[in-house]
């Protein structure tokens, strides 16, 4: 013990370079990351001002398209957080998508809440419900967890299908938006979608860069070793599950504000999770860039091939199988390995103090 007393202690938080051993410093930023931040801000500014510069005849359809893909993207981002970082592969995240949508609709139609204010409230409801749900879902692990969460989502689907106040199995419409004219409604929904996309990326990025994010990565790599280092594994998993539910609920509430009509089969469809899995696996699981790349590809495929219906879905399924077997890391994983790109660096790299290299 006495020998250990004199050695300088290494602070847990390594945000500062002083924490590293002598001659080494901790670096997280990359040049690509700083360029990406600039480009990202420009893109966000461009997207946010779309109603001002888009040609009038396209503005409406572009905004609708963006809102739809934004919902898919936010949902995929959260699935990536849950499965890629939390190691919890769920096929039941549509439970929270539907809860977000139905809560928004119920608050709007029955409580007179402005539906746009009800969107974040729907997300909060999903997060709240995730706490008791986790108590049941966490009884299972691995593949059993995946199908168990699917059963839970089905419980909510069948439950809402039996509530006549929200139209039962055939669903109902969002009547609360009746008084608002179409143009205002579209712009408000669009603005909300842009905000949700930025918030989802920022939320996941900041979460992963925080001390809790580091703990999460440690759990993913080896839960037993992480626990032996004093990390509260169960608490962390619950935190991730709740955050992912919040994001899933946000996506759902946003989707049904744009869609104006909800039904249990649409809200709790396993396809939401299927598309999220597709985007994340194609883009690269366990990377923030993964769902972004995946969503862009999904958007392009959807735009040009969705008319083929069953053949299109069949192709998506095959593509997911092929990528999982032959390109486990997905597109971004390949680029990262090949060129060392990292737009959202969350790892800490140790570099020698003497010869600073920033890229």
């Amino acid at each position: 013990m006495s020998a250990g007393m004199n050695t300088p202690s290494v602070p847990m938080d390594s945000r500062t370079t002083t924490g590293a051993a002598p001659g080494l410093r901790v670096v997280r930023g990359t040049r690509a990351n700083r360029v990406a931040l600039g480009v990202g801000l420009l893109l966000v500014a461009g997207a946010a001002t779309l109603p001002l510069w888009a040609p009038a005849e396209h503005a409406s359809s572009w905004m609708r398209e963006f809102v739809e893909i934004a919902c898919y993207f936010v949902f995929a981002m959260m699935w990536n957080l849950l499965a890629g970082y939390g190691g919890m592969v769920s096929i039941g995240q549509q439970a929270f998508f539907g809860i977000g949508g139905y809560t928004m609709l119920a608050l709007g139609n029955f409580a007179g809440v402005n539906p746009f204010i009800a969107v974040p409230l729907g997300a909060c409801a999903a997060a709240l419900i995730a706490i008791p749900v986790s108590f049941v879902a966490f009884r299972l692990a691995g593949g059993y967890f995946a199908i168990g969460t699917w059963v839970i989502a089905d419980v909510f689907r069948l439950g809402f299908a039996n509530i006549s106040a929200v139209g039962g199995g055939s669903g109902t419409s969002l009547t609360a938006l009746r008084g608002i004219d179409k143009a205002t409604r579209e712009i408000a929904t669009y603005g909300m979608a842009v905000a949700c996309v930025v918030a989802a990326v920022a939320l996941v990025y900041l979460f992963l860069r925080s001390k809790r994010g580091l703990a999460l990565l440690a759990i993913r790599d080896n839960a037993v070793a992480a626990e032996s280092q004093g990390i509260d594994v169960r608490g962390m998993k619950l935190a991730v599950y709740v955050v992912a539910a919040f994001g899933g609920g946000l996506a759902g509430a946003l989707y049904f504000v744009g869609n104006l009509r909800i039904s249990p089969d649409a809200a709790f469809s396993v396809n939401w999770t299927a598309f999220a899995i597709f985007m994340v696996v194609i883009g690269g699981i366990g990377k923030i860039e993964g769902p972004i790349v995946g969503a862009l590809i999904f958007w392009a495929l959807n735009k040009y091939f969705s008319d083929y219906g069953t053949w299109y879905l069949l192709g998506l399924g095959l593509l997911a199988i092929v990528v999982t077997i032959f390109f486990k890391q997905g597109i971004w994983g390949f680029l990262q390995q090949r060129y060392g790109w990292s737009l959202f660096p969350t790892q800490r790299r140790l570099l020698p103090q003497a010869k600073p290299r920033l890229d």
Partner: protein
Amino acid sequence: MIETLLQGLLLGGLYCLFALGQSLMFGVMRLTNTAQGDFIVLAAFAAIVALTGVAAIGTVGAASLITVGVLLLPVSFGFGYALQRFVLNGTLGRDPLPSLVVTFGLSIVIQNLLLETFSADPRSIGTEGLNTASLALPGGLAVGVLPVLIFALAIAATAALQWLFGHSALGRSFRAVSDDREIAELMGLDAKKVYALATGIAFVLIAIAGVLQAMRTTVSPADGPALLLFAFEAVIIGGMGSFWGTFAGALLLGVTQQIGFRIDPGWGIWLGHIVFLAVLVVRPQGLFPKTRE
């Protein structure tokens, strides 16, 4: 009440056949086959197509059904064996993601392939009145002949699988790779081959389940996920690695659903899910667990 209970038990027999293949794959290689239900539907459609083909040649009736049934089993075994050998073996490992994504992808492929080929219409296998024939029981009760046959088949399949697992050389190799793959391989077992044999047998059970489902009611391309959930619930309620446990889990699920349907047709499946979740909370290892997880 007794009638509901009886109907539920008979429904459970069918669920048991849905679940046994899943139970075997869980038990031997911890593989969650997300496409279990879709393979059941696929087998049913394969049987329907084969029967149409046989009818075109000229033979009809029970003889053709038996011929097709017998032919379908080796084909299914080969299909399952090849699927495990050439696709699924590569996805096994500590990370559950690859096998889940691949089987989930297969599920989407099968559903859309069937939808494209056969449209969304429900279909069934003609049984020449067997599915409406009933047996009169004392006390004014009546049960269907076909459900009773299915129930008997479920008992036979469970007993056969339990015997195979517990008393045969093949079963010994199943248990060996399940307990410790590395040691089993050191002892000279080829784990990949053993896994492929397990999946082959699971697919024989899947084929039986598919044919019986199409005989008892109808099948349509989108039915798979619901069947998967029932199979999964039966396995988890029963406890990992015990086939009689799966049988008991399936019966409990069948009875619960039937009681739910009796109360309100909209709540039957929901009630089944709730009982499954309740068992999970109260007894997460299942009713009759055999293997450690």
